[in-house]
């Protein structure tokens, strides 16, 4: 793998309370990020429920890298690079399908869905068949799962997935705990939103508790939602540094104060009686109530998976100033009444006529244009520095609108890029 990472003065570009604007605009920095972050750490790719049957496959990505996620007949999941080993055509083009083998459309080479080269037309053109053993599809060297979420790492060695996720494993555990079967399914399909902004504008915004009252005031008022108040100055909610660049807006203190099952989802148990009954049968009435009061996590898993209560956002950088966001509704396996509502809410907030993502995207693109200005050179991320504190588990937390998450992201970023940890 080429190592293009230039030796940039990371410690001079990233300070505890401010970051340099060139981090969002410099193509050399973007190239270095691909090598040191996207092609090295664990990156979320897809979910096992997207390839439920043997020989199912879906097209995925790791940053700009095109990836095929396939399930072989034994049930094992593979992450293959979607590049023909002959002259680099895309081997697969359909977003999903079922096939035990793939055939490149350019010159007809065939590959098994585990990546093995099966053959090529008119083989006398090659001296012997030694080629076959050498020219299997490229693969993502390490593949691992947590609660059915499939991650890939281009590094042959390094921290395990669970080491990388660290405290963020709790977000996945909390997410699947809300499902009456203990499993989620990503079967609602993916919307893709392209925006002209650097990927870190999105990463930093996902757990920014300072902007919702401004950027999202229209959806909060249209939906008569109380969510806006959770991100106010009086809120008891906290933002948290979970370590390894993972960050959280923890709204549970507010939800517990209100003590309304499903209040986090803006509904009541009577509206989804089957779901509530299933969850009570599984967890017992008391635990089910607690789980339904606490709600679903709001956690940004570094670098690309945002668990946003009932939706998932996947961040895919495609250029220094271009990012694609892939969005889907969370679905609980075996809970059709709840799933219908989660899908409807997702369409309302991030669908083609949705309010939420459109508002955020407008901010991302304005940010990217604003950061081109020559002065000031820096972005300030000092909010709440004076009131940072440790919670009972030893994590750094701040008030709901503080910039603890942004500082946490940059601290981890700097250590990955080669600055001081």
């Amino acid at each position: 793998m080429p190592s293009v990472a230039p030796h940039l003065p990371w410690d001079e570009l990233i300070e505890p309370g401010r970051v340099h604007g060139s981090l969002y605009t410099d193509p050399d920095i973007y190239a270095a990020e691909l090598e040191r972050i996207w092609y090295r750490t664990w990156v979320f790719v897809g979910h096992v429920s997207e390839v439920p049957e043997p020989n199912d496959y879906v097209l995925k990505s790791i940053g700009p890298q095109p990836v095929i996620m396939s399930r072989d007949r034994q049930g094992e999941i593979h992450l293959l690079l979607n590049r023909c080993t002959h002259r680099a055509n895309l081997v697969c083009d359909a977003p999903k399908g079922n096939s035990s083998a793939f055939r490149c459309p350019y010159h007809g080479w065939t590959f098994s869905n585990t990546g093995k080269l099966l053959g090529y037309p008119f083989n006398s053109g090659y001296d012997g068949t030694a080629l076959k053993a050498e020219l299997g599809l490229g693969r993502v060297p390490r593949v691992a799962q947590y609660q059915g979420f499939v991650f890939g790492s281009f590094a042959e060695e390094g921290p395990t997935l669970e080491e990388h996720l660290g405290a963020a494993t709790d977000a996945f555990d909390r997410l699947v705990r809300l499902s009456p079967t203990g499993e989620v399914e990503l079967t609602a399909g993916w919307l893709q939103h392209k925006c002209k902004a650097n990927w870190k504008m999105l990463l930093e915004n996902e757990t920014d508790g300072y902007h919702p009252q401004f950027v999202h005031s229209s959806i909060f008022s249209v939906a008569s939602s109380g969510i806006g108040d959770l991100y106010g100055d009086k809120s008891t909610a906290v933002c948290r540094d979970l370590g390894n660049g993972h960050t959280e807006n923890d709204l549970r203190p507010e939800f517990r104060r209100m003590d309304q099952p499903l209040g986090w989802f803006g509904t009541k148990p009577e509206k989804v009686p089957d779901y509530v009954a299933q969850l009570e049968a599984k967890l017992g009435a008391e635990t089910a109530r607690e789980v339904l009061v606490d709600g679903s996590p709001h956690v940004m898993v570094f670098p690309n998976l945002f668990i946003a209560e009932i939706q998932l956002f996947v961040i895919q950088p495609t250029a220094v100033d271009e990012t694609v966001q892939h969005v889907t509704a969370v679905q609980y396996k075996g809970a059709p009444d709840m799933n219908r509502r989660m899908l409807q809410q997702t369409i309302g907030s991030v669908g083609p006529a949705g309010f939420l993502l459109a508002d955020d995207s407008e901010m991302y693109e304005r940010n990217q244009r604003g950061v081109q200005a020559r002065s000031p050179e820096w972005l300030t991320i000092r909010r709440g520095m004076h009131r940072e504190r440790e919670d009972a588990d030893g994590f750094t937390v701040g008030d709901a609108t503080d910039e603890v998450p942004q500082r946490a992201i940059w601290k981890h970023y700097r250590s990955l890029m080669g600055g001081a940890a």
Partner: protein
Amino acid sequence: MARGGRSGVGELSSEFASVHVSIDLEGNGPRLRVEDLRTGQVGFLDPLELETLAWLPEGALHRFLDPSLHRWRAES
């Protein structure tokens, strides 16, 4: 196409191939008729051959997916 269920003979397509399958009754017994819709090439499979397919181990057909084996065989 929605996931789930099973249907009778008809057309099956992926990004790699398009075939039409039907049950042919021209012979003394039924056969599955498979037509490659991209070329018009037709092949038949009798019940015993089909049963054998159902019992094939993983990847056994992959040998025949080598394009040089039949369809794009070199002249020499």
